[in-house]
């Protein structure tokens, strides 16, 4: 079985993360419950004729894929695997409100086409003229982890050499309103600096695209090795510690071997308990890293965690804004990521320096 490497990264989020030469050099302190992506100049990457029908999610996905390919030094890849929780949500809303508001009349196809979940993956294939394997996973907070698992399987068995994977989701007004109604978005104002310590229900919502080239050939640009990824549709609170330990054991590691844990805390008092199980117990002496206070929660926020972990492993630095505790760790070899959303779709991902 071949080893699998992250050979390049690309990130568009509510922080300025699309420039790969930086690592959160400047942090935007958001003071809103809904945080939008800091967008690159799309025209620099996509010809206007191609961009004219693209939804924001498609633009973010296509640009992130181009940045990732460029950094990996590739013209094309063998496969494209995309994760998205909600797809191009704005177009879904536009088409649906059109149906209701105009009593099913005068509807146009563009927003319907964009609402199809695999539209981002399809558009990336069109842009790259990539006729290879093209899958889209749509499983809540495990959408991206599914792409990671799929790519890893193919690369280990040498069925492909380079695979583009990524997660993308966009904010849309009506859906945001609905999530405010059911308190999945916090009622009260909150800032980047206070989110993780909040004691209230819900989180802040964000959007973005995080793409990576995975390969079974290590190269100069490589960030990390993907050692293992595992998903659970459900996991009871009192099983989290044991499951984490077994995951480490399967990879011949103990908690002492970990130099950092990257956690999906989103400031929701109801569900951050899953992370607290670990931080207050087996990881109390480990450097704890969080990131959702910077970019908000969304179904494909977790690949930003992979971006963070990759950057830490490659640069051997850890920006203060990401630290949940301070253990003064200065050398990073193994990083574990754990994420879940509202107690469902849990994932464990293990990365290692190349």
């Amino acid at each position, binding site marked *: 079985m071949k080893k699998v490497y992250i050979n390049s990264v690309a990130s568009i989020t509510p922080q300025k993360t699309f420039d790969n030469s930086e690592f959160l050099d400047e942090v935007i302190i958001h003071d809103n419950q809904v945080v939008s992506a800091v967008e690159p100049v799309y025209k620099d990457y996509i010809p*206007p*004729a191609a961009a*004219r*029908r693209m939804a924001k999610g498609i633009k973010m996905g296509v640009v992130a894929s181009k940045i990732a390919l460029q950094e990996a030094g590739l013209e094309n890849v063998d496969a494209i695997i995309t994760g998205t929780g909600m797809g191009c949500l704005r177009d879904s809303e536009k088409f649906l409100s059109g149906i209701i508001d105009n009593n099913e009349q*005068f*509807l*146009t*196809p*563009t927003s319907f*086409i964009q609402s199809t979940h695999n539209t981002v993956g399809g558009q990336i294939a069109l842009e790259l003229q990539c006729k290879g394997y093209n899958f889209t996973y749509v499983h809540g907070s495990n959408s991206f982890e599914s792409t990671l698992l799929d790519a890893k399987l193919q690369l280990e068995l040498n069925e492909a050499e380079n695979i583009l994977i990524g997660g993308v989701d966009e904010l849309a007004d009506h859906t945001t309103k609905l999530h405010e109604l059911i308190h999945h978005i916090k009622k009260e104002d909150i800032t980047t600096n206070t989110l993780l310590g909040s004691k209230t229900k819900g989180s802040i919502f964000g959007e973005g695209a995080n793409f990576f080239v995975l390969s079974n050939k290590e190269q100069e640009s490589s960030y990390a090795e993907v050692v293992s990824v595992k998903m659970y549709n459900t996991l009871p609170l009192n099983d989290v510690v044991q499951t984490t330990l077994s995951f480490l054991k399967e990879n011949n590691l103990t908690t002492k071997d970990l130099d950092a844990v990257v956690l999906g805390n989103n400031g929701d008092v109801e569900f951050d308990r899953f992370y607290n199980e670990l931080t207050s117990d087996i990881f109390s002496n480990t450097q704890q890293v969080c990131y959702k206070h910077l970019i908000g929660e969304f179904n494909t926020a977790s690949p930003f965690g992979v971006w963070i972990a990759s950057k830490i492993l490659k640069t051997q630095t850890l920006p203060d804004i990401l630290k949940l505790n301070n253990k003064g760790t200065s050398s990073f070899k193994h990083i574990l990521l754990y994420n879940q959303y509202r107690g469902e779709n849990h994932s464990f991902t293990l990365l290692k320096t190349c």
Partner: protein
Amino acid sequence: MEALKQELKENIIEQLNLEDMTVADIADDDMLFGDGLALDSIDALELIVMLDKNYGIKLTDPKEGRTIFESINTMAAYIQEHRSK
């Protein structure tokens, strides 16, 4: 007729998101599909809805659009003849 052509150009630019174009960029006899504006089959469907919504003209077969949407001239002529609003 000239006003209708102007209106069509404005609507096409808006409806089809031709952000980098202005009305002056589209000549009355420019090919809308193929070599000219390079519109495609999805744009044709958008134009069919435009005919329905703005001029009360219903096309049931997308193939009918091919000759109607050849240029601004052909579109304007067809609308002039068939419009119900």
